C-alpha cells in the first residue's frame, strides 16, 4: 500500500490524456456540492427559522430533510460514475501497472484515491460556487417574500459536514462500483450481471403496484386502524417500495423497447441504439433511473399542490412555499441527473475507444454516432419519466385527476420543468463531445 501514493502522484502529472475526462467529473462534483450546500442551508433554515415554525408547524423541516435525502440518490450514482470514469481514463496505465507487478488491491486503492481526489477538488470548487450563488438563493420567495441571504447561508460546521459527506459518498460509491471492474495485465474489463427475468419482474411489479394503489385508496381506513403517524410512515414506505419496484421493471422495459427499436430500425443510428439498449438494459436504466424518482415526486407533490392553490392566509403561504420547494427540488434533481449522465457517458465513450476509432476509419459520420449515443440515453430517460409519472398517477389517482381539471396551469409548470430537465440532460450528453473528438484525433 505504501506504493499507492507515489504511483498516484506520478499518474496525476499533466498530460494530453483525456483532459475532459478529468474536468467533467470535477465540474459535476462542484455543481453537486454547491447545490447540496444550498439545500442543506435551506433545510437548516426551515428547521430553526421562527417563521417556519409560525407558518408550517415543523412541516417545512420535514419536507426540506426529505428533499435532502432524495438528492443523496443521484449523488451516489454520480460518485460511482466518477470512479468508473477514473478507471477507464487510466485504462492502459492501470493494466501496465498490473503487468509490472502492482497488486489488484494497489490498483483498487489508486483508482479510489484518484476518484476521491477529483471529488474533493470538485467539492472545494463547489464551495466557491455556492458562495457566488448565495445572493441569488437569498432572492428565493419563501414565507411570503425573498427569504434573505443571511437566512439561507449555511452554518460553517454544517457546510464542512456536507463537504466531508460528498467526499465520503464519492469514495464509498467508487469502491463499490469497482467491484464490477477487473484490472488485469491485459486491460480493464467490466463484469456484467445476467439480465433480469422480465416476466417475473413485470408480474411482481404490477401485483405490488395494484396492492399499493388499493392501500392508498383506503388510506382513511388504514389511518383509523394504525393512527396517523404510523399510517404516514406506512405511506412513505409504500411510495419507497413503489419506486423500488419501478427500478425492478425498468430494465426489462428498456430491453423490450430496445428490441422493438432494433427490429423496426430503418437507419444505422436506431439499429445500433436499439441493440445497445437490448444488450445493456440494466446499466442503461440505472444511468437515468433518477428520472423516475423526479417525475414521481413531480406528479404526486405537484398535483397535490395544484389543488391546494386555493388556500389562503398562513395555509396559502405554506402551500406556495411547498410549491417553490418542489420546483427547486425538481430543478436540482435534474442538474444532478445531468451531471451523472455526462460523467457516465464520458466513461462509456472511453470504454469504447477502439471501436470509435475503428468506426471513424470506416468513415461513419460523427453525427450518426452522436445520434445513436443520444438515443441510448434519451429513450430510457423518456421511459423513466413516463414510468415515474405513471406510478405517481396510479398511487395518487384522485388528486391527479382533480388537479388536471382545477389547476391546469400548475400542471403545465411542472411539464415545462420536465422539458427544461430533458434539455439539460441533452446538454450534458453534448458536453462529452470533446472526448469523442479527442479519441477520433488520437489525442485520448
Amino acid at each position, binding site marked *: 500500500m505504501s506504493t499507492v501514493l507515489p504511483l498516484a502522484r506520478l499518474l496525476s502529472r499533466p498530460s494530453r490524456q483525456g483532459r475532459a475526462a478529468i474536468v467533467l467529473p470535477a465540474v459535476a462534483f462542484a455543481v453537486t456540492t454547491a447545490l447540496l450546500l444550498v439545500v442543506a442551508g435551506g433545510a437548516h433554515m426551515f428547521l430553526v427559522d421562527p417563521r417556519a415554525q409560525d407558518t408550517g408547524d415543523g412541516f417545512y423541516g420535514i419536507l426540506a430533510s426529505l428533499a435532502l435525502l432524495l438528492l443523496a440518490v443521484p449523488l451516489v450514482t454520480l460518485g460511482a460514475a466518477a470512479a468508473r470514469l477514473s478507471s477507464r481514463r487510466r485504462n492502459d496505465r492501470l493494466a501496465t501497472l498490473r503487468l509490472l507487478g502492482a497488486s489488484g488491491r494497489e490498483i483498487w486503492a489508486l483508482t479510489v484515491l484518484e476518484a476521491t481526489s477529483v471529488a474533493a477538488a470538485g467539492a472545494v470548487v463547489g464551495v466557491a460556487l455556492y458562495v457566488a450563488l448565495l445572493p441569488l438563493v437569498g432572492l428565493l420567495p419563501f414565507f411570503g417574500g425573498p427569504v434573505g441571504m443571511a437566512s439561507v447561508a449555511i452554518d460553517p460546521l454544517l457546510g464542512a459536514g456536507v463537504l466531508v459527506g460528498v467526499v465520503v459518498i464519492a469514495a464509498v460509491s467508487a469502491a463499490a462500483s469497482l467491484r464490477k471492474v477487473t484490472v488485469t495485465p491485459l486491460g480493464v474489463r467490466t463484469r456484467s450481471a445476467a439480465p433480469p427475468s422480465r416476466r417475473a419482474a413485470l408480474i411482481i411489479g404490477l401485483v405490488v403496484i395494484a396492492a399499493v394503489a388499493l392501500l392508498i385508496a383506503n388510506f382513511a381506513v388504514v389511518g383509523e386502524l394504525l393512527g396517523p403517524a404510523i399510517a404516514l410512515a406506512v405511506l412513505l414506505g409504500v411510495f419507497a417500495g413503489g419506486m423500488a419496484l419501478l427500478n425492478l421493471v425498468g430494465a426489462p422495459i428498456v430491453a423490450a423497447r430496445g428490441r422493438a427499436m432494433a427490429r423496426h430500425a430503418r437507419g444505422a443510428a436506431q439499429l445500433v441504439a436499439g441493440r445497445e439498449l437490448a444488450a445493456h438494459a440494466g446499466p442503461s436504466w440505472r444511468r437515468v433511473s433518477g428520472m423516475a424518482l423526479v417525475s414521481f415526486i413531480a406528479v404526486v407533490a405537484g398535483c397535490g399542490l395544484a389543488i391546494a392553490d386555493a388556500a389562503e392566509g398562513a395555509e396559502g403561504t405554506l402551500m406556495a412555499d411547498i410549491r417553490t420547494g418542489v420546483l427547486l427540488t425538481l430543478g436540482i434533481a435534474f442538474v444532478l441527473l445531468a451531471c451523472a449522465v455526462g460523467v457516465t457517458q464520458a466513461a462509456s465513450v472511453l470504454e469504447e475507444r477502439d471501436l470509435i476509432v475503428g468506426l471513424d*476509419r470506416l*468513415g461513419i459520420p460523427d453525427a450518426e454516432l452522436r445520434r445513436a449515443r443520444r438515443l441510448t440515453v434519451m429513450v430510457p430517460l423518456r421511459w423513466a419519466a413516463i414510468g415515474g409519472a405513471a406510478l405517481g398517477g396510479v398511487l395518487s389517482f384522485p388528486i391527479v385527476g382533480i388537479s388536471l381539471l382545477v389547476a391546469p396551469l400548475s400542471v403545465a409548470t411542472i411539464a415545462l420543468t420536465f422539458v427544461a430537465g430533458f434539455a439539460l440532460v441533452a446538454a450534458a450528453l453534448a458536453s462529452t463531445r470533446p472526448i469523442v473528438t479527442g479519441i477520433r484525433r488520437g489525442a485520448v
Partner: protein
Amino acid sequence: MTSSPVLTAAGLVKRYGALAALDTVSLTIRAGESVAVMGASGSGKTTLLHTLAAVIAPDSGSVVLSPPGAEPTELVGLSESERARVRRTLLGFVFQEHLLLPELTAVENAALPLLLTGMRRPDAERHAAGWLAALGLAGMETRRIGQLSGGQAQRVAIARAQVTGAPVVFADEPTGALDSATSADVLSALLHATTGQGRTLVMVTHDAEVARRCSRIVRLRDGRVIDDTAATPLETTR
C-alpha cells in the same frame, strides 16, 4: 496488360515532431493488385496506410484515388468530413481487432456501411448476407459477434469492408490476432473478396508468410521505401 493505377502517391511527407514517419514516399498501386507493406516497428507502414486511406492528411505530397469508371480524386486537401465520405463510399477497412459492434448480429454489422449510404434495411441486409455466404458464413447471419470465433468475426469484418463494392480495401495486420491455420483461411477469404473480384488490397503486415501471398511487397525503413518488388513464394523477411 498492365492495369490502370487506382492509387497514386507522390512525395508523401508526414512528421511527428522531429520524427519523419514518411519521408518523400511515392507509390503507384494498380487495380487488382495486392500490396503487402512491411517494415520494422516505427518504419512508417501504418502511417503510410493511414495516409493512402485518407485517415490522416500528410504534411505535403499528393494521393490520388482513381476508382474504375469514376473521376480521379485528390485526397490531400479534403476536409475531414469529405475524407470520411471517401472512406465510407470508396474504401474498405479490415483491422487486426475486427472492431465490429458486439451488440449487432453478423449481418447487421456487415450491412452497416450500406445503411449509412441510405440503402433500405431489407436490401442492405440481403446484400450483406450474400457477402457473408460468399465468405463461408451462411447460416450465421443472426449470430452476435461474441458467438463467433476470431476467424469468423474477421470474415464478417471482410464482408463489411466489401459490401459497398469499395475498389480499394486497406487491411492493418488482418491476421495478427489469429492462429496460423485460421490466418491462412482468413487471408484466402480476404484475397478472394478483393483481388478475386478485380479489386485492390493494400495490407500492412509483419508476417512474411502472409506477405508472400500478395502480388507485391513494399518494404519501408525510417519512413522511406527501400524495396518494392513482386512477391515470390521464396520471399522471406529481410
